Every structure is written in C-alpha cells, then in structure tokens.
C-alpha cells in the first residue's frame, strides 16, 4: 500500500466521520433499517470511490498500452482489437431472451388497457351504487331525481320542469287541452301499456272538447258523460286502472318510467328514449322528483 492510497483512505474516513457527525446532529435514528442501509451505502461509496480512483491513478502512472490494433485509424488514433467481454455478451443474450418473453408473454398479458381500467371502474361503481341505493328512501330518490333532471331533462323541460312554454311536456300540470285533443284525434300507442293502442277518433266534436277541458282543468267538477268512452281503459277515475293504461289524472311511476324507456312523439315534439342512459333506480328517482313538481 503506497502513500497515495493511505491518504485517499484517510480522506474517506474523514468523509465518513463527517457523515456520522451530520447524522447525529440531525437526530437520525440509525436503528431504523432504511436509515442503516443508507448509512452503509454512504460508507461504501466513500471507500470504493477513494480505492478505485487511486488504483487507476497509479495505473496511469506506470501502464503502457499493448495489443493488436484494428485496421482503421482516425488521424493516427487507433483502436485495439479486444475480445467481447463475457459479461457484456451474457447481458446481450439475456436482453434478447427477455425481449422474446416480453413480446409474447410480458406485454400481451400485462399491458395497461384504458378500456380495461374503465370497465373495472364502472363495475366497481355500479356495485357500490347498487349496494348504496338498494332500498332508497323517498327523500333520497327525490334528491337523486333532481340532480339527474337538471342534467338530462332540463335542456328540454326547463330547470323548473315547466316545459319552457310549450317546448316540452309541462310537469307542473298533467296535460293541456290542446295535447288531449291531439291524442283523441290521432290516437296513441307509444308506451306499450297492457291495454294496447288507443285508436284515433274515439270521440269527436263537442264530446272531445268537453272531455279535454275537464281533464286539462284537473278533473274537477262534474265528470262529463262522454268520459265513459275513456273509462273502459283509463278507469272511471281516469287513473289508468293501476298501470293498465296511462294515468290521466297525475304522473305516476308507470308513465314516467315507460316514457323514459320508449321515448315519445307528441304534439309538442319528440322525446328520445333514455333506456340506455339511466339505470332502473335512476328512472324511479326521476319519477319521484317529477311527482313533486306540480
């Protein structure tokens, strides 16, 4: 061991002592394994750096180059013909084997998929949604219904549900006289109620007018005689005989959910079907909310 090496190692010892001093002054707990490993690493770096640099400095002092030169040289600078180092060769071979594995197994089986992540998220969300809203109370449904209504329904029916002066169904009343007359004149069969299609022109003239006025005014006062034509399907009270035909008196779950599912084309315009855009619970919540709008 020559003098240079002793000096270098002494410098390393000084560095290590200084490190210890800093570690102590910062109250770092060396019994913690991570801190201990880091400390050992710091010592190793100091020792190895000192030793390796001194080794090469000594070599540079005495070493001379020899070996067979390659044919080409650039302005007098040549290159030795060295054997391929075996470590390098094995690493290269290893990379090739890893490449084959990655190509056929690694990437195809472990690749990140945006759609896969989306599917997992949706599945997890739906599961949570179903668990949370298994038996929702009416107030929870109303709250949910309102938020859905504001996003999906308000662009046509307005934020208050008044149908924006005749641009869509007005949820604050059941039907206007014009709407009822239109349905009486043209019939209706869009919501697949068990009673089936309502034929066009069941009543006409004064009878239709009287019925429409009576229904539009909220079925108050004396029931017109002509309503018997409606009663066979819609019931004597006009409430649709518990879901057999549309309820003329008020909004009920059946008519809201069926309209959301099938969409509707009427006097005011066309409503698209929301079948694929709402879950059954969401449809029920909309119904719960719409019933509060009157």
């Amino acid at each position, binding site marked *: 061991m020559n003098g240079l090496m002793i000096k270098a190692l002494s410098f390393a010892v000084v560095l290590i002592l200084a490190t210890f001093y800093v570690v102590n002054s910062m109250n770092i707990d060396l019994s913690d394994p991570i801190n201990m490993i880091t400390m050992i690493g710091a010592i190793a770096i100091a020792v190895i750096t000192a030793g390796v640099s001194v080794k090469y400095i000594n070599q540079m002092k005495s070493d001379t180059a020899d070996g067979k030169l*390659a*044919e*080409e040289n650039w302005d007098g600078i040549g290159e030795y013909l060295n054997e391929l180092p075996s470590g390098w060769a094995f690493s290269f071979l290893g990379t090739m084997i890893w490449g084959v594995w990655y190509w056929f197994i690694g990437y195809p089986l472990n690749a990140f998929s*945006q*759609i896969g*992540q*989306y599917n997992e*998220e*949706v599945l997890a*969300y739906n599961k949570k949604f179903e668990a949370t809203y298994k038996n929702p109370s009416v107030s929870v449904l109303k709250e949910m219904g309102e938020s859905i209504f504001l*996003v*999906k329904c*308000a*662009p*046509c029916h*307005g*934020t208050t549900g008044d149908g*924006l002066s005749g*641009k869509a169904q007005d949820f604050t009343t059941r039907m206007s006289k014009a709407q009822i007359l239109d349905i009486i004149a043209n019939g209706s069969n869009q919501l697949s109620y068990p009673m089936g299609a309502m034929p066009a022109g069941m009543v006409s003239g004064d009878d239709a007018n009287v019925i429409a006025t009576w229904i539009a005014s909220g079925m108050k006062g004396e029931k017109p005689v002509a309503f018997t034509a409606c009663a066979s399907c819609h019931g004597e009270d006009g409430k649709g005989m518990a879901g057999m035909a549309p309820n003329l008196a008020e909004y009920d779950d059946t008519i809201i959910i069926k309209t959301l599912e099938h969409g509707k084309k009427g006097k*005011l*315009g*066309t*409503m*698209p079907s*929301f079948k*694929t*855009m709402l879950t059954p619970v969401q449809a029920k919540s909309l119904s719960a909310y719409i019933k509060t709008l009157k």
Partner: protein
Amino acid sequence: MFHWLEKNPFFFSVGVFIVIAFAGLIEILPNFAEASRPVQGLKPYTVLELAGKEVYKKDNCMSCHSQMIRPFKSETDRYGQYSLSGEYAYDRPFLWGSKRTGPDLHRVGNYRTTDWHETHMFEPTAVVPSSIMPAYKHHFTNIADIETAYAEAFTVKAVFNTPYDVEGGVKLGTWEEAQKMALAEAKLITADMKNKNVKDAVESGKIPEIVALIAYLNRLK
C-alpha cells in the same frame, strides 16, 4: 465483422434508420390497420348529412364542441358509450375537436331531437337559459350547398372506395338522383320542424342549412 460500417458513417446511419423504422412499423402498423377499420354497421354519410357536416365545419362548431367521448365513467354517464376509432372511418376529416366550451356532440342524436335543435340553433337561451352559445339564425335562411356535398361523396367513393351504392347501404346515384333523395330526406326532417319559412323553402325544392345540419346532428349516434 462490422468494422467497415465504422468507416462509413452514411451506411451506419442507414442501418440505424432501418432498425428503428422496422421496430416502429411492427409496433404501429398492425394496431393502426385494426383501429381504422369501420365498426360493424357503420354507413357512409348521405349527401344531406354531408351538407350538414359542411355547415358544421363552416361555422366552426368544432372549436367549442368535441366529438370524442373518452372512456371515463363521468363522460359515458353524460354522453353515452365511449367513442371507438372505427366510428370515424368515413369522417374526412374527423371533427374530434380539442376544446369543450360546449358539450360533446359525438352521440347527440341519441338524446336531442329535430325540434330541440330547431329551437336551440335559432336562440340557444330559449332552451338553455345559461347558454353562451351564439344564435345561428342565418342557418334558417342560407341554402345548403348540396352540390359540394355530392362532389365530396362522389370523390370519396371514387378515391377511397367508400361503400356508397352497395346493397343495404347508402345510395349515392347520379347528381339528379342525389338531389331528389336529399330533398326527400329534408322533407322528413321538416315534418318535425315548426319554422314556416324553412318548411316553405324545402317545399319549393331548396334546402336551408339548418335542415342539413339537423340531418347531420341526428345522425351522430
């Protein structure tokens, strides 16, 4: 063995280029070919729809509206199924857009209707009180350029082999036939519209831009 390459930087560069290009090709091309294939059931645009697409481009709808639903739950809840690359196979150019001042329109045909578009394009705040979208009243008077739309369809059929005039598909036909078909399609749309001037224009054989635009928007599903 390869010492000669070190003496020839040009050939060395060519070699590097070939290696990298090969890796790029086998990584990119198969996926690209797969993804750009039309999804099953996709039909090319009719002439009227193409005329509407021209209006969409002309008035630069894509600077505020995107046509690309990303696979995030929040987006699919609001707009519907996420977009697939094969759905844009007949979009030349695609109108993905990159900014959403307004909502995404890629499936607007599923949840908006002709009458809604009519009211909304004439006066957006009439249906959406907080809307900052400008009114497009000139769509109700400007006449749609059916001729350019036909030329576009004819060109993509001839150059890119877009499947017009196939059985069960969209018929393109001659210019005279195409005009008649576009008018018939326009009449179906005006049946659901209220604006008297637009209805009269279509009756007299002219197609206002709003009708073409609604045909295009209804087609986005």
